[in-house]
């Protein structure tokens, strides 16, 4: 079971600043979304709106076509998992999981305990005594095992070491195949997570910068490498993201898909056409806006 999350013309104002500016965005059911943005771009507030932690100043936030705020049915369908402060948490893991078991209708206890084992989390220790990485893994267990139709992971990997993060990605994909739902993964670890995404949303300074499926976005980024003058001539009417020069050779990252014709013409001129990683696109697109 997967749910749709939708924001229509959402603006969120704080006393002095605007955190989100007129965002309209749909999270289609059953897809894995990467929500990318720099620090302070507004990722977390956007997600907290979907989870009904707060209300927008203007605009609508809906789950499956109904406003989510204070909507008992719809709020039940959303999990918002973020890095929690566990300093005051003296209980152990089984006690904390009881809570999800009681309140999440699709919660799968066996699955939760399989995950705990895979993450090697101790069951008898108080949670505030666990390392940051273990606490992060616990959050992941809660998020995955609750099996909510819309599951949001807001930079939950913080504190996890690389092998643990890989387990997280593997388990997420495996469980998504068995129990499809809508996932939103907010991150700035773009390069290691991009293979997870069906769809990518980039927000920058509270505005929606990009909202497209992963394939299309990948096709947008093109790097052209070759003799400097020829490269310059080739990209003259294209949107340039970044350039690097080494001797007479130049490599330019451009934004905008190449037509087949362009591709052939590049080949004829001895230019090398390559892809641009999502990470590079993210860096240069959000840089360029300044």
């Amino acid at each position, binding site marked *: 079971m997967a749910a749709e999350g939708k924001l229509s013309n959402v603006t969120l104002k704080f006393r002095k600043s605007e955190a989100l500016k007129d965002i309209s965005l749909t999270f289609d059911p059953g897809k894995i979304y990467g929500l990318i943005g720099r620090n302070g771009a507004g990722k*977390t507030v956007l997600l*907290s709106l979907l*989870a*009904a*932690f*707060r*209300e927008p100043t203007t605009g609508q936030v809906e789950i499956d076509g109904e406003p989510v*705020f*204070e*909507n*008992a*049915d719809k*709020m*039940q*369908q*959303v*999990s*918002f998992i*973020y890095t929690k402060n566990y300093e005051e948490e003296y209980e152990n893991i089984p006690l904390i999981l009881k*809570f*999800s078991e*009681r*309140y*999440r209708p699709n919660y799968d206890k066996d699955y939760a305990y399989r995950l705990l084992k895979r993450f090697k989390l101790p069951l008898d220790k108080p949670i505030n005594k666990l390392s940051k990485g273990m606490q992060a893994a616990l959050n992941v267990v809660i998020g995955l095992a609750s099996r*909510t139709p819309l599951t949001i992971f807001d930079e939950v990997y913080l504190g996890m070491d690389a092998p643990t993060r890989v387990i997280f990605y593997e388990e997420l994909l495996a469980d998504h195949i068995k129990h499809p739902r809508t996932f939103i993964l907010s991150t700035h670890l773009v390069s290691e997570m991009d293979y997870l995404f069906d769809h990518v949303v980039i927000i920058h300074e509270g505005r929606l910068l990009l909202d497209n499926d992963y394939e299309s976005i990948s096709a947008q980024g093109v790097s052209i490498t070759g003799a400097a003058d020829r490269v310059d001539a080739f990209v003259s009417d294209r949107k340039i993201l970044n350039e690097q020069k080494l001797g007479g050779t130049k490599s330019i990252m451009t934004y905008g898909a190449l037509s087949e014709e362009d591709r052939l013409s590049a080949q004829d001129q001895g230019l090398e056409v390559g892809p641009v990683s999502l990470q590079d696109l993210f860096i240069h697109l959000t840089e360029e806006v300044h």
Partner: protein
Amino acid sequence: MKSVKLYPKIAVDLFTEQLKWSLWFFSFVTIAHIIGLVIVSINDAHIQEFFVFSSYSVAIFLLVCGIISAYGFMGQFVQQGITRKDLYIGTVISVFALALAVTLIPLAITGIEYLISSFVALPINTNTDTVFDLSSGWLLATSTFFLNVTTYYLIGWLIGVGYYRFGWVIGFGFIAIAIAALSLNSFFWVNNSVVPWIPYNSVGASIVLSVSGSLILISLLLLFIRILTRRITIKL
């Protein structure tokens, strides 16, 4: 998907959790009372029976529970997809249940104390002139106590919500409101200022007035808390 009402579940969970705290609390107070009994028996004096002995600290204990409930439960429950409304109703039910429990527990301990004192002479003073005085009637003492501890919990909850929502500076304003509410409460209950340093001006001896005053205060507190939490932003 047909929705199941969640607030009864929430009420049960909140009640059991806080009842656990209460049992810890009462075991400490009982130990203190026993120590007190030993000390006064050496000095050949008397202390008050358990119900009266514990009354001040029970009220303060519920005040603290109320403060904690704003911080401890709000984020936790909303993160599990529970609406503020369900949480509010669940909490209110649990508050009344908890107030009843912390009224009955000391009553039971006092009963045991009386039972023991019929075999052994205990140095307890049964001749007190507070409203809690059991000689003025068990039912009256119990309901008075119940209303008072409920008020204390709600005042604590209000302070907690005030701080949670508005932060430090305005939070202090909620302390002022709390003190006003406490003074009002002692105004309704003759000779029963649980916070003794607050001057009180009694409405007189009429129990009907006291009970109705208390009920109105409780309703106002409940209303105020609901208004403050109805659309509250949950902190991350």
